[in-house]
């Protein structure tokens, strides 16, 4: 059972001190021209170099290394020229959890979390006979004989039922894409920056009904790195430290392939558990969140997160209020997210939390942001992180 005291002991003990990303729009333009400029390790290495420069630590002070899921840990260490005391492999949220635990136990003091992906120039298939992820999520490929593959199609099935039950319309869903595109327009490092209107959205072709082109994430190349260390070490760096205040997690895998938790429950029980833990550990609630980042391979993730984590009872009203976009009360995916910013599988969302809390987000800065929350719900694996800065 969750022990609130043990979890609370971890609160505010580790800090993100450095972040780095690659040049998403420039690399996207290169890819569109057919150029192969880097591979996954190259993007990862560029981001890592930038994260080191950002925090002022030198490479030999990094004693822990976590490689993102699209990289092999051994090769990453070789490419970066690093020998470390502790290494691991993880997706975005799990990487942050593992880094916090490693630092807390003392197996590492300064951990680099490094991600790189050449999914566009490398031609990663997200649907079809060889759909990516079928080895970890059986449902991504199991129904191939009936032509059902891809995470997008599974979320389209969810959206079909969710819209019918909640009364949410396709236009309501379009508000997610519009709000994030508006933020992307304020972010020079977002891939899709041209304004998007509701007419544009509705004119977008269906991929898997009811999800349209603009409900789907981008597929672009890039890298992301974060440097995490103890709060004491962070203080000595004389850089604004972003503290990890809360961790919530819940894995619901029963009947995952049958799609029952997806289609009958919209993963709400898992969201509820993760929400309870993250808010209890941080000592905060949804109303304390200044900036929200939601893992958005598809627009539908956003209303699911808003309802599942208790930001609202009825997402339609909130989506249509304008509160999720620039100038709104609950800004969501302020970099443009996966839909319009860059599809770095949740890694970029951590960086955006840091930039907002450091007040380095330029035109898209949320004034006075002190608390940022990340919510990820991929196929019933729900995780949330809350970051904060000392006032």
């Amino acid at each position, binding site marked *: 059972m969750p022990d609130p005291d043990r979890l609370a002991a971890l609160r505010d003990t580790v800090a993100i001190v450095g972040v780095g990303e690659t040049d998403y729009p420039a690399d996207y333009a290169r890819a569109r021209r057919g150029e192969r400029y880097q591979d996954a390790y190259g993007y990862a290495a560029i981001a890592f170099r930038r994260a080191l420069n950002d925090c002022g630590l030198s490479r030999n002070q990094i004693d822990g290394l976590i490689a993102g899921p699209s990289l092999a840990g051994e090769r990453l260490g070789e490419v970066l020229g690093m020998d470390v005391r502790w290494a691991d492999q993880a997706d975005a949220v799990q990487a942050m959890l593992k880094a916090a635990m490693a630092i807390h136990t003392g197996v590492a003091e300064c951990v680099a979390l490094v991600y790189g992906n050449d999914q566009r120039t490398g031609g990663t298939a997200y649907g079809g006979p060889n759909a990516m992820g079928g080895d970890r999520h059986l449902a991504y490929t199991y129904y191939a*004989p*009936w*032509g059902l593959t891809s995470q997008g199609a599974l979320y389209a099935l969810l959206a*079909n039922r969710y819209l019918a*039950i909640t009364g949410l319309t396709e236009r309501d869903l379009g508000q997610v894409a519009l709000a994030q595109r508006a933020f992307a327009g304020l972010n020079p490092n977002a891939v899709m920056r041209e304004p998007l209107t509701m007419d544009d959205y509705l004119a977008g072709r*269906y991929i*898997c*009904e009811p999800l349209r082109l603009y409900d789907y994430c981008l597929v672009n190349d890039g890298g992301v790195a974060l440097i995490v260390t103890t709060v004491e070490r962070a203080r000595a760096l004389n850089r604004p430290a972003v503290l990890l205040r809360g961790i919530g997690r819940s894995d619901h895998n029963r009947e995952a*392939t049958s799609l029952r938790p997806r289609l009958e429950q919209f993963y709400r029980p898992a969201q509820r558990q993760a929400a309870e833990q993250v808010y209890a550990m941080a000592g905060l609630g949804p109303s304390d969140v200044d900036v929200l980042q939601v893992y958005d391979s598809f627009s539908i993730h956003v209303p699911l997160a808003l309802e599942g984590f208790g930001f609202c009872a009825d997402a339609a009203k909130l989506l249509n209020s304008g509160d999720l976009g620039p100038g709104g009360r609950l800004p969501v995916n302020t970099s443009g997210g996966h839909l319009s910013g860059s599809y770095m599988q949740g890694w970029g969302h951590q960086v955006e939390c840091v930039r907002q809390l450091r007040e380095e987000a330029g035109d898209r800065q949320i004034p006075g942001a002190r608390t940022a929350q990340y919510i990820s719900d991929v196929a019933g694996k729900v995780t949330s992180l809350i970051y904060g800065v000392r006032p």
Partner: protein
Amino acid sequence: MNLFDEPYWQYAEAGELRLQQCVACASFRYPPAPICPECLTEEHDWAALSGQGSLLAWTVFHRQYFPDIPVPYLVGAVVTAEGPILIGNIVGLPAADLTHGMPMSAVFPPSTGSRRLCQWTSRSSLEHRT
């Protein structure tokens, strides 16, 4: 294909819808699995399902992912009368006629590809045809 899938497809080839059923607790397992997730018993039968169910959700594919499956095509999730959720193509009626919860029946059209597939149609459209 997984180790335990083969019998499912052999029955489908014969036009039968059968799923693994636990001999200890009568729970169904789908997709086929080595052990019952309810009681962790290995022993199972391949029990025939009634072929009746209700429509839980559907999507129309507009993007072509498979060279031999032309778009648009309909994929639905059906809750069978016995409980398990099965995926299939919805045949015999257009997406515009679908409603959540509508009664569905399993059909096994002659194979057009490498396997004979369990598909679903509305119970009423099946009754009109027969």
